[in-house]
């Protein structure tokens, strides 16, 4: 792959920066082509829709969606400038900024892409042992600690945090009572079949796929754990925002248009059709459409409509990069020992979440901006989280590293 930094004017491949000249002092995007990475998951939809429905052209840019094989590849390419921005796991952006797991680069969250739409599944062989919910799972694991293996998608990612949070709610310590492994989303359902793992947390449509393939069943959706939780973000390096603020703003505007379009219920079936394509999510449209439209089944006979299914816009409340959302991931990094000391929670969230740039973009196209940069959330079983005392919150959990 080419790993050319398009930030450097001397770079031989800086063709895309040509339009920058002559635009100094104007609001016009410095770049025309904007390479945006995505992983094949339902929640990459706004990247695809912004491009396919040409919302990007309204703002003078051309989004080039680039499918990525792994989160590690996304990170590498953001860090070295091969991608301008990407559909990224919320926690992962914070992890790279803090240098957890090696590579460090100052990062930026331009906006939140979606709330909700992930889930926790158990492998079918647990059903044979009479385990169909968290409490029964806890009894099984306590009887045989260390015998069971659960998968997530990236060590600092959202799925690791939802999985840990959910297990801990039932008294299971994810660091000492079980083994955890990282498995690519598309391979979750298949791995559950070969019985090398007992459960997993992943984004849709891969939980739905497991039910259809009869390899796994659902025990919780991520919105059961935290209704309207932050999930994927539009991430980039801090350097990109500094160098190309107008491009970043235009990108947010196009993504906001797409988010609004996707959240209009009348458009959802069409969106599911578009993203199911081989070059995007590459999964049957039926597998995507069910949960995308809020129609859930758990694979054990229960069916329901979830009003809190995946959201992209929700009147401007989804995309706003709340500081409290970012700080929550830091509290969990501290809880699980990925951070040894309490960081300066608020300062780091301020560094990463580009509130000002977001407000400029949103107000430019009449997207409502919340009054407060923090929000109050009520997660399953524990004290509410409003960002006011992160150190105390991080220390408040009984089950921890």
């Amino acid at each position, binding site marked *: *792959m*080419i*790993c*050319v*930094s398009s930030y450097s004017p001397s*770079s*031989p491949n800086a063709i895309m920066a040509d339009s920058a000249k002559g635009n100094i002092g104007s609001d016009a995007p410095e770049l025309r082509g904007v390479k945006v990475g995505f992983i094949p998951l339902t929640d990459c939809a706004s990247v695809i829709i912004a491009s396919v429905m040409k919302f990007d052209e309204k703002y003078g840019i051309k989004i080039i969606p680039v499918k990525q*094989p*792994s*989160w*590690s*590849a996304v990170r*590498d390419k953001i*860090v*070295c*400038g*091969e991608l301008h921005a990407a559909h990224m796991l919320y926690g992962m952006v914070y992890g790279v900024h803090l*240098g*957890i*797991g*090696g*590579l*460090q*680069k100052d990062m930026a969250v331009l906006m939140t892409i979606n709330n909700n739409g992930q889930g926790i599944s158990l492998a079918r062989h647990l059903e044979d042992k009479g385990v169909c919910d968290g409490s029964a799972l806890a009894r099984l694991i306590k009887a045989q600690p260390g015998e069971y293996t659960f998968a997530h*998608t*990236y*060590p600092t990612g959202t799925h690791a945090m939802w999985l840990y949070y959910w297990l801990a709610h039932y008294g299971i310590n994810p660091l000492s009572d079980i083994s955890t*492994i*990282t*498995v*690519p989303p*598309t*391979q979750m359902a298949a791995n559950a079949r070969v019985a090398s793992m007992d459960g997993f947390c992943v984004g849709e449509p891969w939980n739905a796929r497991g039910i259809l393939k009869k390899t796994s069943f659902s025990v919780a959706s991520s919105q059961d754990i935290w209704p309207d939780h932050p999930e994927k973000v539009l991430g980039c390096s801090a350097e990109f925002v500094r160098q190309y603020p107008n491009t970043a703003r235009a990108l947010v505007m196009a993504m906001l248009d797409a988010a609004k379009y996707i959240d209009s219920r009348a458009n959802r079936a069409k969106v599911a059709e578009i993203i199911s394509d081989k070059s995007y999510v590459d999964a049957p449209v039926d597998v995507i459409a069910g949960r995308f439209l809020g129609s859930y089944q758990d694979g054990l006979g229960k069916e329901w409509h979830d009003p809190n299914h995946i959201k992209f816009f929700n009147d401007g409340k989804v995309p706003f990069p709340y500081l409290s959302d970012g700080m929550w991931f830091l509290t969990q990094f501290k809880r699980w020992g990925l951070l*040894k*000391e309490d960081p300066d929670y608020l300062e780091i969230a301020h560094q990463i979440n580009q509130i000002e740039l977001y407000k400029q973009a949103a107000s430019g196209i009449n997207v409502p901006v919340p009054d407060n940069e923090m929000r109050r959330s009520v997660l399953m079983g524990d004290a509410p989280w409003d960002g006011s005392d992160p150190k105390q919150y991080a220390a408040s959990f009984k089950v921890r590293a």
Partner: protein
Amino acid sequence: MKRILIIDDLVDRAAWLKASLELAEYDVVGVLAWELVNEYSIQAASADVIIVDANAPGRDTLEQISLMSTTLEKPVVVLGGQKDSHSIQVAMRAGVSAYVAHTIQGEDLSGIIQVAAARFAEHKRLRDELKEARNQLVERKLVDQAKAILMVDHGYSEADAYKRMRSMAMSRSKRMAEIADAIILAKELSGA
């Protein structure tokens, strides 16, 4: 830096790479399929450098294995893409694994493996130093806190409080931070 582990599902490509590396006098200690990648297989290979394909989703699995254990953290050379020495340099400067073309020949690859390993060692050294500096800062904070407890509760001067902690650390062959930690814990236990 002679022991190489190749992880690739394409048997022919892996065999070609293995032959090419062996011509350049590398010791290919194993060729793994992605489904066999786990903590144990990586440990068993005890490679100096791991070579993987850029398009393998399993790279995230490998990353977690190295995050979990400092001893399993290895330089990774990622194959796939065009031959472009500028891009390799940019990637390696950033501390990203070296990205190189699949078609690269043994001799060129040899140079890249050496540079990738050197850059990796350099990054790891910087990171360890940073960690060490952070630990020292944390330890100093603990010592200050314990000193303050001794001063307030026992009326020692700062110098005396420090001297007492120091002599206890020496007589018990413990680190100052451990003594400080014990003082702070005892204080918490007494309910203050």
